[in-house]
């Protein structure tokens, strides 16, 4: 078992906490190359998602992820709302009916989620979006070696930082063309938080 309902809930709560803390940072990143609302959007949505799952106790990872998905879809708006919403919706479908899952099932869920993101946003790696973090993070999860939380986090971190060098081809930053170079993509930064928090949680004991 790498993930169960209890850990998944912890993941969402802790991710929400980090987003609240880094709301200003994410917004600042978005002010540089977007419209300056990424932190505001995610802070609003993840707070609601955390509230929503607190109100319930889950026996089913799929149900938990579905509540997160629906809340994000209904509360975030902008580009990141449908994207994160779609990702959690795919997780919920992959993990439906399971209380806990092994590494393979986890990787499968995230692969589906990544497919969902690509289908919804039509971005490719290199377009300077959250995909630039999702693609390598999901590849690492699905890889051969042992699953190491710190490595997962560091893959995500490196790729997040790598978006700095890229020219945006999708999302609002694409309007800047070359001027988008030199800034970290806000969605890549929030996706890094998502994976690094997941990495922490799967590395912890049953009820840390």
């Amino acid at each position, binding site marked *: 078992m790498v993930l169960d309902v209890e850990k998944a809930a912890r993941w969402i709560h802790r991710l929400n906490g980090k987003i609240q803390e880094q709301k200003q940072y994410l917004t600042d990143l978005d002010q540089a190359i977007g419209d*300056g609302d990424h932190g505001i959007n995610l802070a609003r949505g993840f707070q609601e998602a955390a509230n929503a799952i607190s109100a319930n106790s889950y026996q089913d990872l799929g149900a938990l992820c579905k509540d997160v998905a629906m809340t994000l*879809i209904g509360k975030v*708006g902008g580009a990141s*709302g449908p994207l994160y919403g779609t990702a959690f919706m795919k997780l919920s479908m992959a993990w439906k009916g399971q209380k806990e899952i092994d590494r393979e099932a986890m990787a499968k869920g995230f692969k589906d989620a990544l497919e969902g993101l690509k289908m919804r946003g039509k971005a490719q790696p290199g377009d300077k979006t959250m995909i630039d973090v999702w693609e390598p993070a999901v590849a690492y999860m699905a890889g051969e070696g042992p699953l190491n939380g710190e490595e997962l986090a560091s893959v995500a971190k490196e790729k997040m930082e790598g978006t700095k060098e890229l020219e945006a081809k999708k*999302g609002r930053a694409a309007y800047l063309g070359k001027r988008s170079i030199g800034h970290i993509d806000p969605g890549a930064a929030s996706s890094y938080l998502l994976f690094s928090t997941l990495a922490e949680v799967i590395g912890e004991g049953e009820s840390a």
Partner: protein
Amino acid sequence: MKKLINNPDRVVEEMIEGMVAAYPNRIRRLPGTTVLVRKDAPVQGKVGLVSGGGSGHEPSHAGYLGKGMLDAAVCGEVFTSPTPDQVYEAIKAVDSGKGVLLIIKNYTGDIMNFEMAAEMAEAEGIKVAKVVVNDDVAVENSTYTTGRRGIAGTVFVHKIAGAMAERGASLEEVEAAAKKVIENVRSMGMALTPCIVPAAGKPGFELGEKEMEIGMGIHGEPGIEKTEIRPADEIAQTLTDKILDDLKLGEKDKVAVMINGLGGTPLMELYIINRKVAEILKGKNIEIHDTFVGNYMTSLEMAGCSVTLLKLDEQLTELLDAESDAIAFKR
């Protein structure tokens, strides 16, 4: 941040309440949503028109509710696309069985949220068509990535598709009219000052005391260049040239002109811009059928303007001239 507000997190909610209080006989709010609809929606035998997007562009879009224009406007958070559930409620509320057209400005967020709503509505058996407005010629090579942005030209789409729908046209016909506008409308804007999203509390970008940004988007997205501020005539020339280049207008062509204020610019200045735009068009023997000067698609309190030209044929002329009872676009 100096604003006439109570709470930065409640501006959209309170704006909606203020609009409903202002026009109780013309619009109503769908309970529990940020959707405003024509009082008499759904109008029987008429295709429903839904638009919307982030708030902060008032009178876009709720100001265009009314006979001859929109049936529903979905209000997102400031500069943030509304969510699919809200758009879905709008679609359901205006469908009379003839189908619903979604008029979307070309931003990734808007497209994804409206698309998800359309999928939800189609799953319920509602006929939905979508058009994406991309009139902003400022950032060219974005055509190969996300495409051009949608800005003030959207208002002409509302007007003309609205007139078509009011005549009882089918969803396909209304969609075709909207697409024809989109093919023939081009805009470009510039800004003298930034604006402050209430929840952010500080400007989205900086412009020096003598700087302006040419090609600025309506959310403060940067444009072509940041330059020293220039006289109004030169600005008008730059914007109009860029549009004319793209729209390939020739002698005897007929256009509608919109000189749109971004929210913080006095009407006086918009007329000064129009003076030059009209002169340029006259110099090229392009006929000006009608001119609209005012705040149509704003960016909170940003100072600046955009110029829009719509190339008209007989059908578009007639639909543009048709009666409209919309709050901010009476004809």
